[in-house]
């Protein structure tokens, strides 16, 4: 693969590229989905090919090929370089691509590689979770259990001399259930996603995900739709992570700076929140779904302190953004697969713990709502607006939690929300997610401690 990568880079350079890089990938996946005890989907796939980029003067071109012969790769690289040459007459801003050179091989050590686990064992695991969810309560009327595993081998090389080989191994189990009682129909979703081999599916958390999901769905049967109001909100660790991700993380992706598409453009080095607030993105945490040693451009990663003591201190960089902004590269470029171009992305994103006790935080809240876990969220960094939706929550009255509510949305402004966070607890938890940007999905994690936001619009019926 190394020699094939070199063929691509040489061909792109020869055709006139100032910078070129290539990702050669071999990914094997299995997905097993079961509903009501019956297999709905058993799927195996192999994703194999090379993605090649060429750059000259500020113009990029990208192409891909599944033909992994020297001839196939050479011709794709040459045509990509020609495309960059054709585009470079139209660019407005010239710049170069610089960055440190890395040569490394990072192999993943797993106890049980996916390919060594018989398909019957994987199906048996899914069946066990599906049965567990359905057997939890008579009111569970539908179960859907999905297992997925993905093994990736990836070579990344560029014309600066970087040549990195990385491996990744991601298993995930999820349980979606529907509960029905009279006229009330509710759904719940729980998942466990980690970085590691099949042994990671043998933990207690993974082995009980069906039961956890059903317990939530049964609980939701007695929930009510929230009433819309402007109120104080305590976010649980998972929802807090989603807030950090949507309300701030995306706006810190450095490709927004040359594009002038973030409300944080003039805020680097400035106060964006209270002094007790620290937001980080850290791909070096062990065994997490959003962790990686080198990014998809072959740059070594490290922890990023996005907000330190309330000040915006660091952005998420690709080689292009660090080169154009003359900032330190920090290995945040990610691509869904070889079919996509790497762009600045988050990894494991979280709020650092503070000093409040969780009970203390709740009892200090006169009226509001404790919101837990999440359904989804999205943001527009250029407009400075975001929203995210909690799966469920509990109304708080006089410092005590009461009635369960569901599907509660919060809308807010990126530049205003951090200032409203007045208390951060000392607990900490992360949860697995998948993040979409520019039609590319990547696995990630988000989390933090419990934290309180004052006076935000909470949507409801």
């Amino acid at each position, binding site marked *: 693969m190394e020699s094939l990568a070199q063929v691509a880079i040489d061909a792109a350079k020869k055709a006139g590229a100032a910078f070129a890089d290539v990702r050669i990938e071999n990914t094997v996946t299995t997905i097993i989905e079961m509903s009501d005890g019956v297999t709905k989907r*058993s799927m*195996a796939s192999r994703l*194999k090919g090379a993605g090649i980029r060429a750059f000259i003067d500020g113009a990029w071109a990208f192409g891909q090929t599944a033909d992994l012969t020297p001839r196939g790769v050479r011709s794709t690289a040459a045509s990509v370089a020609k*495309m960059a040459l054709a585009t470079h007459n*139209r660019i407005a801003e010239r710049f170069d691509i610089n960055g440190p050179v890395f040569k490394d091989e990072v192999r993943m050590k797993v106890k049980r590689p996916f390919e060594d686990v018989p398909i019957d064992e994987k199906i048996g695991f899914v069946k066990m979770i599906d049965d567990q969810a359905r057997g939890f309560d008579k009111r569970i009327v539908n179960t859907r259990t999905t297992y997925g595993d993905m093994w990736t081998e990836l070579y990344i090389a560029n014309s600066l001399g970087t040549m990195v080989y990385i491996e990744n191994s991601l298993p995930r189990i999820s349980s979606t259930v529907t509960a029905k009682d009279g006229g009330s129909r509710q759904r719940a979703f729980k998942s466990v996603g980690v970085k590691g081999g099949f042994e990671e599916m043998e933990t207690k958390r993974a082995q009980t995900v069906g039961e956890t999901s059903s317990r939530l769905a049964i609980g939701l049967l007695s929930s009510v739709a929230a*009433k819309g109001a402007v109120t104080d909100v305590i976010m649980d660790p998972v929802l807090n992570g989603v807030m950090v991700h949507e309300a701030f993380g995306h706006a810190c992706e450095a490709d927004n700076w040359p594009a002038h598409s973030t409300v944080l453009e003039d805020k680097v080095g400035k106060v964006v929140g209270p002094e007790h607030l620290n937001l980080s993105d850290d791909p070096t945490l062990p065994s997490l779904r959003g962790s990686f040693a080198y990014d998809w451009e072959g740059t070594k990663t490290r922890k990023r302190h996005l907000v330190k003591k309330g000040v915006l201190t660091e952005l998420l960089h690709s080689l292009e953004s660090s080169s154009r902004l003359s900032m330190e590269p920090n290995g945040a470029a990610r691509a869904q697969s070889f079919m996509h171009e790497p762009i600045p992305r988050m990894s494991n994103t979280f709020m650092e713990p503070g000093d409040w006790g969780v009970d203390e935080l709740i009892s200090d809240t006169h009226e509001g709502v404790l919101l837990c876990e999440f359904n989804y969220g999205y943001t527009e960094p250029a407009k400075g607006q975001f929203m995210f939706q909690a799966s469920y929550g509990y109304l708080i009255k006089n410092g005590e939690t009461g009635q369960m509510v569901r599907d509660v949305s919060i809308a807010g402004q990126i530049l205003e929300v951090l200032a409203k966070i007045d208390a951060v607890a000392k607990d900490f938890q992360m949860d697995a997610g998948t993040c979409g940007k520019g039609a590319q999905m990547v696995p990630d994690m988000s989390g933090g401690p419990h934290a309180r936001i004052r006076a935000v619009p909470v949507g409801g019926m």
Partner: protein
Amino acid sequence: MAQRFVELAEKAVKAAERLGANQAEAYIGTSRSFGIDVENGSIKSASERRDAGCGVRCVVGKSIGFAYVTTLNDDDIDEAVRKSIALAKASIQDPDFVSLPSPEASYPIVRGLFDKAVEGLSPDDAAEMIVRCVDAAKEPITKRRNSIQAELSVSSGTKAIVNSLGVSQSAKTTSALIDSYITIKENGDQTSSSEYQVSRELKGIDPEWVGRTASENALRNLGSKTIEGGEMPVVMTPLAVATVIGSGFAGAINAEEVQYGRSYISDAIGSQIASERLHIVDDGLLKGGVGSRVFDAEGARSQRTEVLKEGVLRSLLHSSYTANKDKVSNTGNAYRPSYAGTPMIATSNFMIMPDRGTLDNLVSEVKKGVLCMNTGDRPNMTTGDLSAMLMEGFYIENGELRHGLKSTLIGINMRDLLKRVSRVGADTRATASMVTPSIVIESAKITSG
């Protein structure tokens, strides 16, 4: 080319049968797409993607397996066949599975799905089109600090589907997409807006309109404020309707979701579930429709299905599996985005039938309410609860737009929303697989702050 893909697919089906499949299906998809991107008002990158792969579905007894590969090499397709069979053999039987679809006596003719001008668009012509979009976008906003992003992409592709019951079909299609995203700043205020068009034909996209409209919308968003909330009417543009009713209702009448009891719609065929002003048709045969096709993702013939007539539910959207399970006829709504997945159920062209009036007319009839230009939110498909942010919205007073809105949410259950449709406009617009007009929801809970 198409004939070669049919032959490859036939070979895969035969191989699967030899290895013990009772039924097998091979789906081959190939595409070539070209894209060009604008950053901050200037072209910055171009890309070319060539994708070809094969998905193989095997049935052993009543168990099903599926595998795909991202090449069309013989060895790789063989690997997909072997893995698909092995998965089918290991899977748990589905007692409701009856059969893959049989070939149809005849297939409809659907016009306007392929455009030579899209397939043959040169990089220079593509660049010229995107520059026209950017120039049109610049004009309304030259006096303000601004940033223009834009993107044009064209793609052409061939799909072939063969199964062991005799289905053997292929089709060539094209599509073109242009979008523009505008950011403007003024006196410490920063806002944005976007616009896009998608079409099977090159002449179906208008770069100047996309650029200019995005900029004009962004300008109107300057000075957005919050309002006092409460129950009030909501006017929705065709884009917002496509998200909220299009996806939010289309997903609820997906027969698989209904059969499993996961949808907020259940046992409702023949019942009045919506305002009598709502007529909805799913039309796979619409000339030039982005969602149109001759056959669905399993090779069943496409059709026009009446979904909602005067608010009464007439039909769900079915694939062969759900139709067999309910013992009704298949509506041909099996869908897969590419060879890389098993068929699911989705709309073809989900069309809300127009009534009368423009968006301006609808707004002028509202005394106090909000206009939802766009939202990214969909309802909880099980409870029907919708809590949606106005990604872009306006406050309406005495029939006129007063100012843009920020941090504002709409809350309503979909079952109420469907019944509270009090006006349907005539201004239908096609967006991907939806064709929708503006509508008015009599009242919903607005929260803002």
